[in-house]
C-alpha cells in the first residue's frame, strides 16, 4: 500500500470512531487537533486500525507516535515486514 492509501484508510477509521464522516486529516494532524480524539476514542482507533490492517502495535510504539504521519509510517513498516 502507498502512504496515501494508508492515510485514506486511517481517515475513514478515525472518522468512523469519532462519528465524523467529513473528517479531513493529513500527516501533520495530531490528536489534539481533532475534536473528540481522547483517551477512549484513541483506544478504539488503535484497535480498529489493528483489525483493519491485520497488524499489532506495541505500547512503546504507540507512545512514540506524535502525529498521523508517524502513525502511517509505522503501519507501512509493519505491512512491509509481513
Amino acid at each position, binding site marked *: 500500500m502507498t502512504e496515501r492509501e494508508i492515510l485514506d484508510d486511517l481517515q475513514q477509521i478515525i472518522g468512523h470512531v469519532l462519528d465524523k464522516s467529513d473528517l479531513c486529516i493529513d500527516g501533520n494532524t495530531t*490528536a489534539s487537533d481533532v475534536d473528540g480524539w481522547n*483517551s477512549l476514542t484513541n483506544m478504539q482507533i488503535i484497535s480498529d486500525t489493528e483489525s483493519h490492517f491485520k497488524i499489532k502495535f506495541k505500547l512503546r510504539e504507540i507512545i512514540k507516535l506524535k502525529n498521523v504521519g508517524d502513525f502511517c509510517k509505522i503501519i507501512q513498516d509493519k505491512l512491509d515486514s509481513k
Partner: protein
Amino acid sequence: MTERGRSAFFIQGVYYSYDDLMKCVSKIRQTVHRIPDNNITLIANDDLETYASIVAIWLEGKCYVPIHPLQPLERCLDIITQVGTSYVLDSSDETRYSDYHVISTKHLLFTDYDIDFEKGCSDEELAYILFTSGSTGKPKGVKISRGNLAAFITAFNAFDYQLDENDRCLQMFDLTFDLSVMSYLLPLLSGACAYTISSSKIKYQAAFELLDEQQISFAVMVPSVVHYLQPYMDEINLPSLRYSLFAGEALPLDLVDLWSQCAPNSIIVNGYGPTECTILCTACIYDVTGGNKSVNGTMSIGKPMLGTEVMIVDDNCEKLPNRKKGELCLSSIQLTSGYWNNSSRDAESFFVFENKRYYKTGDLCSIDEDGDIMYYGRKDSQIKIQGFRVELSEIEFIARRFYSHNNAVVAMPVYDDKNNCTIQLVVEKAGRDDADALIAYLKKYLPSYMIPARTYFMSSFPMNVNNKMDRKKIKSLISSKN
C-alpha cells in the same frame, strides 16, 4: 547537589530546579502583592509559571481559582463572574481574557528572591476554589481552606507512605481537578520532583511514557489509565514504582490484580474523597497475598483517614447499622465550609448530627463489621468520566436551553463491553436536522468530556406507569440502535 539545584518539576520534557521555581515565584509574587482581590483566577496551563503562580498566591495569603485553558470560554467566564474577581494570571502566549486585568506571568522579570512567608494566615482562609459540574447548568464552586488542606497533608502523612527528596512523582491531572493538588504539593513539600502531563495529551499514553522512561516512584492515577493500558499489561514492568494510588473513580479489583504484576515493588492504594472533603479522606491498601474486599468487583474504599468520621444514612437521613446500604456521609476537618455563594446547595448537602457537621456524598456505600467501606456507585445522576465529575442534568439543562426549553432531552451514560463510558443524548423531536448545531452549542458551554458521543432523536419519549419519562425504555431503545 544543593537543595536549590534539585529538580522541582519536569514539564514538557524540561527539568526546572527549585531555584528556577523560587525565581519564578518571586517575580510573580511581586505582582500578586499589588492585587487587591483575595481570590485570583489562574489559567491552568502546563508550565512553570502556572505552578509558581500557585505558590506566589499562597505566599501572599490569597486563594487560587483554576480555569481550564481548553474549556469553553462561556463556562470559564461564568466561573470568573461567580468569583467576582477582575484579575487573571495567565501564562498563555495569547490570552482569552482581554476584558480583565490580565497578568501575563511569562513576561514578568525576576529582580530578587521573595519567598519568605511572613504574613500569618488563619486556617479559615481559602487555599483554592474548584468549580465542578453543577446540576443547574452552572458550575458550582467548592471552597477549600488552608486548614482543610493542612489536615489532608497531616492525614496523608499519617497513612502509610512518606515521600522524600529522591521521589519522582507523577502529576497527570488538570489543575481544575483536586487530585492535582496532592500530585504537585506532596512532592514540593518533600523536595521531590513532579513530572507533569499537559491536558492536550492522551493521558494514559503520556502517563505510561513517564512511568516507564522517567522511572516514576510515586503515582496518583485514575483507574481509567490502567484500564486503557490493560491490552498491554504483558509489556509493562515498572520496578521503580514504589507507590500507586488510585482515586477519582470506582476501582475494579481485577484491574488492581493485573497492576500489581506490572508494579511488583509498589504499595497499591485505593483512595476515596469528594472535592468537598479535600482530595482524599478514606483509603484501602491492596494486599498482594489476596483477601481484598470488594462488592460487584469494586475494591473497598477502606477506612476513614485521620481526622475523618463516616456514617451511612437512609433517604430520611437516619443513621443505618453496619452492612446496610445507604448514602455515605463524611465529617472531617478536611470538610469544606460550603459552596461558593450557594446557600441553597449548602442546605441540601450538609447537616449536623450529634454536634458534628456532615456532608452527604451522594455515594451509595455500606460499612462492614471491620469498619471497611464498600462502594456501590452513585445515588444521583452524577457519573464519572475519566475521573471527572459529570452531572448528566447539567448536560440536559444546556441542551434544553438550546431548544428554548420546548423539547425534552435525556443524557445517559452508555457502557460498552469493556466498561468504557460515553454519554449519549436523546432529544424528543422529529428529525435530526439541527444535530450539528446542538453539538456546537453544547461545545460552547461544556468541557469536552461532557460532550455526547452520539445524539438520537425520538418523536415522543416512552412513558412509564407513573406517566414519567421512562429512562430505562429510552436507554434500551438507543442500545438497540448502537
